[in-house]
């Protein structure tokens, strides 16, 4: 009845050594799927989409099982646990304030200090009898492997960029193929990112719409709604077109649009869109030279500005380059806006028969 082979002291000390490590499943439930979509759409939701930092166990890990470090952005954590399906492992979640591994590493929250602190806090040396920890490769932006080893004794293995490659990486004896090191930026990746470009732009569009309607509606007698709508509608359409051009078409077609500069890419899409609309739609008031100049000056530039914003979501642009682009583009943007306003004021004064 009694198993004499169990060393009671060992057994008890082990129980004590392993305090409550939450067990997690590799399977996603409906809420996980819904959350993965929602955090691509809503900023406020994403910023609160977190798991508690600390140690988690997946499968039936023991003291020889691998330890994987992750961020406490729930989507990062979910993708990792899903990818580890079938394996028994420990997951060490760092407190990255709910930000994904790469961004958090860039800001230093997924960093050497936090990793060292978390290793000590969960007493990782009591949980495993090896000194290895697997960190996502993109975490290397914030984690100095040499420093972690000096401070904790743990040797950092920079794993693959993508969680989906983890199983192959482990099977190959923690060896990465060149493909496992590379970051992708497929059309689908870019498409997924566009809602976060479009939604903030739409918010600005409402302010733009109010200004446009007031401008066209303004008469000596007050704001005339009919004038506002009839003359303002084409501008609202162009506004929407530049959002679609800069925040959707440019990101999705990115590699197929000529030039490396995002500002130029966005401008090209913007000017094509404006020309296309003017050619195919007979819009009210657009035959006026002043208005037409504004169409071609302002809207492609708005599209260019939005396209430039997308640099923050890409996986290959660099800060020096974006600064270089901004240095040239910002003055052009400001001058274009100023000229557009002057042209519109002249147009308005002309309409009101002042000049």
């Amino acid at each position: 009845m009694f198993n004499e082979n169990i060393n009671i002291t060992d057994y008890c000390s082990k129980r004590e050594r392993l305090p409550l490590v939450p067990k997690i499943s590799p399977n996603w439930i409906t809420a996980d799927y819904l959350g993965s979509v929602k955090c691509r759409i809503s900023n406020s939701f994403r910023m609160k989409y977190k798991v508690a930092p600390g140690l988690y166990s997946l499968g039936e890990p023991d003291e020889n099982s691998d330890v994987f470090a992750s961020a406490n952005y729930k989507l990062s954590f979910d993708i990792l646990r899903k990818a580890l399906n079938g394996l028994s492992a420990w997951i060490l979640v760092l407190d990255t304030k709910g930000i994904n591994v790469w961004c958090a590493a860039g800001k230093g929250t997924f960093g050497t200090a936090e990793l060292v602190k978390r290793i000590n806090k969960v007493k990782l040396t009591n949980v495993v009898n090896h000194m290895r920890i697997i960190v996502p490769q993109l975490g290397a932006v914030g984690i100095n492997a040499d420093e972690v080893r000096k401070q904790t004794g743990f040797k950092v293995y920079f794993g693959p960029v993508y969680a989906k490659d983890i199983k192959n990486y482990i099977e190959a004896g923690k060896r990465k193929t060149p493909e496992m090191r590379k970051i992708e930026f497929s059309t689908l990746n870019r498409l997924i990112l566009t809602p976060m470009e479009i939604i903030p732009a739409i918010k600005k569009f409402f302010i733009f719409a109010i200004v446009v309607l007031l401008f066209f509606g303004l008469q000596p007698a007050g704001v005339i709604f009919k004038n506002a709508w009839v003359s303002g509608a084409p501008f609202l359409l162009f506004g929407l077109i530049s959002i679609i051009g800069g925040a959707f078409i440019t990101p999705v077609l990115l590699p197929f649009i000529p030039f490396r500069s995002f500002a130029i890419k966005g401008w090209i899409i913007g000017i094509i869109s404006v020309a296309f609309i003017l050619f195919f739609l007979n819009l009210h008031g657009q035959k006026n030279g002043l208005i037409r100049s504004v169409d071609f000056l302002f809207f492609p530039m708005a599209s260019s500005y939005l396209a430039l914003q997308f640099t923050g979501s890409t996986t290959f642009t660099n800060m020096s380059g974006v600064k270089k682009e901004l240095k040239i583009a910002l003055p052009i943007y400001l001058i274009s806006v100023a000229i557009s306003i002057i042209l519109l004021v002249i147009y308005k004064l002309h309409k009101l028969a002042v000049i």
Partner: protein
Amino acid sequence: MKYLKNSASLNFITEKCTNCLICIDVCPHEVFAVKNKKVRVVDKDLCMECGACALNCKYGAISVNSGVGCASGIINGMLSGGAPSCDCGSSSSAECC
């Protein structure tokens, strides 16, 4: 996909390199490669200035001016006079990379 020509601030000092290969291991864009048994920068235009190589190079052979690469972050930095920042940590409504 490549970004602007000759814009990356990556600087590699061959003399300090010991060919430990950590840079090749952490770079997500294959900027480095072994040529004639020595680590070399293959294409600087591929560099996105993430800084992983410079942080993990024990021998100080790599330097790169890394930071937030998003336009709104850089504009924020220009306006506030500080470093580019998209303020993910402090504000719950702020956009983030």
